[in-house]
């Protein structure tokens, strides 16, 4: 039977918790978690940096922080991966704040199509261009929520865990952002 959160079965969650508990007692036993989550965490960071060397460096920081703080991790219905993404999310924000560099938001063609549909517009080159312009007017925290939900198709519970919001708060915020985008598209962007 599948659990409704993140579509994982109870057995899968239990197996993961066994790995986490083992790693809490012995850092050498962190290796299976490292193997399992290295690629997803690497890609999560790479999507936001588009720099391979920087991504490798930040991924290393994420896993060191995870190893140091793993004793604090407690299962509260959110999988270990969301906890890792939260560390990665904070590392990325910290890096760009310190380096005073612009973060990259790379948007796939299918992401634009999906977002156009969500905003109640049909997909066309003109609408895509308008949408890109509207996205450029969003605040950074708003853009991060759009990225997590519409470009990465993450569930609200996971978005909440990553950004430090509650699931409901994440839903409300995203609804408002979508309304803001719709208004900008209808008024051909003014905000």
């Amino acid at each position: 039977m599948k659990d409704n959160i993140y579509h994982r079965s109870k057995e899968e969650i239990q197996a993961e918790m066994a790995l986490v508990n083992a790693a809490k007692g012995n850092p050498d036993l962190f290796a299976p978690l490292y193997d399992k989550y290295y690629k997803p965490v690497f890609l999560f960071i790479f999507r936001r940096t588009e720099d391979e060397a920087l991504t490798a460096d930040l991924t290393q920081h994420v896993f060191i922080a995870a190893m140091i703080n793993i004793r604090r991790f407690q299962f509260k219905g959110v999988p270990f991966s969301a906890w890792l993404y939260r560390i990665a999310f904070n590392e990325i924000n910290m890096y760009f704040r310190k380096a005073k560099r612009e973060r990259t938001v790379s948007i796939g063609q299918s992401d634009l199509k999906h977002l156009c549909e969500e905003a109640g517009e049909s997909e066309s080159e003109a609408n895509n261009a308008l949408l890109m312009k509207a996205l450029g007017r969003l605040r950074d925290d708003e853009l991060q929520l759009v990225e997590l939900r519409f470009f990465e198709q993450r569930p609200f519970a996971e978005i909440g865990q990553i950004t430090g919001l509650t699931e409901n708060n994440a839903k409300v915020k995203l609804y408002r952002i979508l309304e803001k985008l719709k208004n900008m598209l209808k008024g051909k962007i003014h905000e």
Partner: protein
Amino acid sequence: MARLKTGRKTLSDDQIRKHKDFRKLRANYDEAVRPLYKKPLYRDKRAFLVLLIILLLTYIISEITSREEKEMQEKNKTEQRQQP
């Protein structure tokens, strides 16, 4: 602010795998959790430099004070000699 761009860069599994190194992670973890007093001083460049500066300052201050003391003593001696 973020820079928006269409189209995503992709990486192959091999490109990702070449950065994966648990041994390096384990060594960095050990380095991060090792207490400061267990780290040999000569290996930590920054601590070594700070200690060197402290020693240098102590030496300079002690030199200045001892020189001043000597000067004071000599001054006292010459004053005593000049007095009838």
